[in-house]
């Protein structure tokens, strides 16, 4: 049984504290990702782009050990966080998920909790304490750009919010745990353009103090919010792989690989 160990280690590159190394992923016998080597610089936004089914969402779930919750999921290789492989047996996956937070594609606030209850739910679920719950609720909702819209109705049910507000509430809920990394799996795909822009503003704001990894099908969004971009591809039922990873500017304006150029220019995908 793994013990509750904070993720620390040696040999930390100050600019990168999350990376995947020779990562392979399977569902049963089906090999879905091969040889993924990616680095995520600190306090920046990395976008993962690529056609549907190439393994972007599967990959992002390996970064906080959510992948192993899926039946028949298997993995080889390493995900290093603060210099330590998060898949080491001594590492507690629960601690990993506290330090590497996640926001999902479909807004999923807890329906039986209030807005305030949702923000604090991470603390309660992970048995943590805070000196002031009110301060934490305000700080988290402000960071998610939702405070002004809900400050007078914190005891309202979370289900009374619009879709965009619910997704920002989910961001606030994740931020309340003060993670070092926030993983976002297509957070805007179910939202209207107005809500999408609000969330993109939030992503840019939080990336000043946090590493963000965002999966997106929207290439304009990737260009708007991210500092780096990785292009995933899966060809002819083969496992997904990273074709190219570079600064967002280089990927979209000066891609090295023709497949990247074809994808970002809309010739396929």
């Amino acid at each position, binding site marked *: 049984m793994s013990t509750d160990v904070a993720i620390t280690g040696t040999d930390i590159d100050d600019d990168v504290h999350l990376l995947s190394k020779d990562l392979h992923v399977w569902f049963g016998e089906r090999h879905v990702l091969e040889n993924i080597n990616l680095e995520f610089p600190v306090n920046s936004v990395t976008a993962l782009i690529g056609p549907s089914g190439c393994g972007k969402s599967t990959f992002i779930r390996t970064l*906080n050990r*959510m992948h192993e*919750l899926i*039946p028949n999921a298997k993995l080889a290789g390493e995900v290093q966080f603060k210099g330590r492989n998060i898949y080491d047996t001594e590492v507690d996956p*629960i*601690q990993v*998920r*506290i330090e590497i*937070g*996640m926001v*999902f594609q*479909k807004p*999923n606030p*807890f*329906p*039986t*909790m*209030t807005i305030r209850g949702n923000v604090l*739910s*991470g603390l*309660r*679920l*992970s*048995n943590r304490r805070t000196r002031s719950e009110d301060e934490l609720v305000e700080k988290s909702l402000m960071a998610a750009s939702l405070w002004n819209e809900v400050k007078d109705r914190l005891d309202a*049910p979370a289900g009374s919010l619009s879709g965009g507000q619910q997704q920002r509430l*989910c961001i606030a*809920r*994740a931020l309340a*745990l003060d993670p070092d990394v926030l993983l976002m799996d297509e957070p805007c795909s179910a939202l209207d353009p107005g809500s999408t822009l609000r969330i993109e503003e939030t992503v840019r704001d939080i990336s000043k103090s946090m590493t963000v990894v965002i999966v997106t099908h929207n290439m304009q969004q990737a260009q708007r919010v991210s500092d780096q971009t990785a292009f995933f591809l899966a060809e002819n039922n083969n496992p997904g792989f990273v074709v190219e990873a570079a600064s967002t500017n280089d990927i979209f304006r000066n891609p090295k690989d023709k497949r990247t150029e074809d994808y970002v220019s809309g010739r396929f995908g």
Partner: protein
Amino acid sequence: MGIMTALLGSTVVSLVVRGSKALSFHALFQNTFSISSVTSLDYGGLGHAVLGTLIIVGLAVIFAIPIGIAVGVFLTETNGPFNGSIRFLSQALTGLPSIVSGLFVFSLLYVTGLVPKAAVLGSIALFLLMLPTVIRLSEEVLKLVPQELRFAALALGAPRHKAFFQVIFPAARSGIITTCLLGTARIIGETAPLIVLVSYLPTTNVNPLSEGMATLPTYIVTFLNYSTDFANQRAWGGALTLMILVGVLFALSRYLGRNKI
């Protein structure tokens, strides 16, 4: 739709019209000690049968609900090698005829001498009838909770048991309450096992470990066996009382099952 409404409506109307003659406030506090088939409805009542039903059904419910829900949770939250078999058995036993349940308990527990003749045997038979329904319905209700909620809780660093008790179970609460109600409704009017296992007593008995206890179904059957008007009206009164009990249970479940924040 109109025909269904008419059919259901006529059942309710018949029950109310025929049963109300035998029901009165005093009838709820009296039994049928020294009441014969020709005794006027001004005397005697069915309080002892109501009490007996509540006791025998209550005992079955007290065990079937927690065990059934626990098995439902086990089937939803785990992926063990026996889950398929448990699921199949519970689905198959949902249709268990009540007389079979009664005879099973009779031969396995009473004839073998394991349990002496006692009203609790009826509770055991009703428990066997209720359990598969509670298991199956709890599993269905828990499966309806979106998987995204589970993942959201786990992604916040929740251990599995906390994710279940603080997120999944509250989200399924109204469904679980409905499950408990439907399970209770499944057994509250069951007659065959009670005829086999629980002797009808005209007096009031609240001890399930003693032989014999009046229940509403056996009260109805007892008085239906007589051909007099008074006896028939008493039987209708019992049927109306049973319907009112079920109605109260359903109303309670709707009140308790509303989603609270």
